């Protein structure tokens, strides 16, 4: 084969490879993006708590336990019988603050909307008895409004409402079942401060399952 022919073959192979890799990356990106409905990003997440529904509801009505659970990142103020105001700050210490209004819609049903915050958000939670007497399912739906550019920036700055929801559900389950939430961040190790920062970034990657 002439050298010109070889160049065409190599160029063709490179093009096909680039197209294939590009399609694979695009497919993976699409799979990891939340659904869109009328301009809102929507995710549904759930977790099963090994306690009866009344005990899960009871957890939130015990002020002492609630304060202990929220101590690090949020305060609650009661407005009337069914409405609460929540002021929450970024658990990672980024200085971001949200104000939200929570409404109890009925036994085991709660909704909220962010009144002041970096991203317009609203959501609802429903408590459903789990099958085979395995406790209570906490079913959550979260909607947030964010443009595509902002969404990309949000992911880059590690603020992702979906991740925050998943983390919150795990935290709530652990609090209800054990009364505590474990954390191993900055446990003793032989790492230098720089290595610790790199490890923190990798931990975040592990939390998101490798998602950027």
């Amino acid at each position, binding site marked *: 084969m002439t050298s010109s022919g070889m160049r065409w073959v190599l160029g063709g192979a490179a093009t096909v490879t680039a197209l294939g890799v590009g399609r694979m990356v695009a497919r993976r990106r699409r799979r990891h993006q939340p659904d869109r409905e009328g301009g809102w990003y929507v995710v549904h997440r759930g977790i*099963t708590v*090994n306690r009866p529904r009344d005990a899960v509801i009871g957890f939130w009505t015990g002020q002492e336990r609630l304060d202990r659970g929220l101590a690090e990142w949020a305060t609650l103020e009661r407005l009337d019988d069914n409405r609460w105001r929540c002021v929450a700050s970024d658990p990672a210490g980024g200085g971001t603050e949200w104000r939200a209004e929570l409404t109890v819609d009925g036994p085991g049903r709660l909704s909220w909307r962010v009144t002041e915050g970096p991203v317009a958000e609203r959501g609802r939670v429903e408590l459903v008895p789990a099958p085979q007497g*395995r*406790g209570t399912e906490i079913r959550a739906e979260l909607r947030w409004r964010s443009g595509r550019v902002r969404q990309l920036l949000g992911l880059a700055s590690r603020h992702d409402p979906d991740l925050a929801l*998943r983390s919150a559900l*795990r935290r709530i*389950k*652990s609090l209800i*079942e*054990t*009364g*505590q*939430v*474990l*954390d*191993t*961040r900055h*446990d*003793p*190790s*032989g*790492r*230098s401060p720089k*290595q*610790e920062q790199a*490890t923190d970034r*990798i*931990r975040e*990657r*592990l*939390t*998101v*399952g*490798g998602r950027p």
Partner: protein
Amino acid sequence: MKALCWEGVRKLAVRDVPEPTIRAAGDIIVKVRASSVCGSDLHLINGYLPAMREGDILGHEFMGEVVETGPDVRRIKIGDRVVVGSVVACGACWYCRTEQYSLCDNSNPQPVFSEKLWGHAPAGILGYSHAAGGYSGSHAEYIRVPFGDVGAFTVPEGCRTTRWCSPPTPCRPAGWGPTSAA
């Protein structure tokens, strides 16, 4: 305190590291008297298990003396000689209540990676990479043991420390629990 740290594949070093502190109400701090080497330590050292980081403290088969307890610890007392199971279990989730402790829902603080890798996150394991929670291990002078009431077992008077730390330590509590309950 001194601790044996993983520095990279087949690279270990003894380093000065901060002492552990009580971070949750169910934690206990154990002064390690004996810590043995498990076959799976070799997997970690040789890089066969993912998610090890420079500076991670190895070791998960050990016994020692309790020197500090969290406010919610009831069964274990300061001064107890204990042997500790390497798997961290909360004792309250569905898996723990059905005696499937290695699947505990609440002891692995970063489960998403292993969920993707294996389909279900295992429980946290002391000194066993960040896929198993990123806990510091027992090849150190002190170690923090979460859910101390569930994972630590008091060694009877008169038993030698080294006898109770002979490998595999995780089998000791597994056998001791049912035997003592019988």
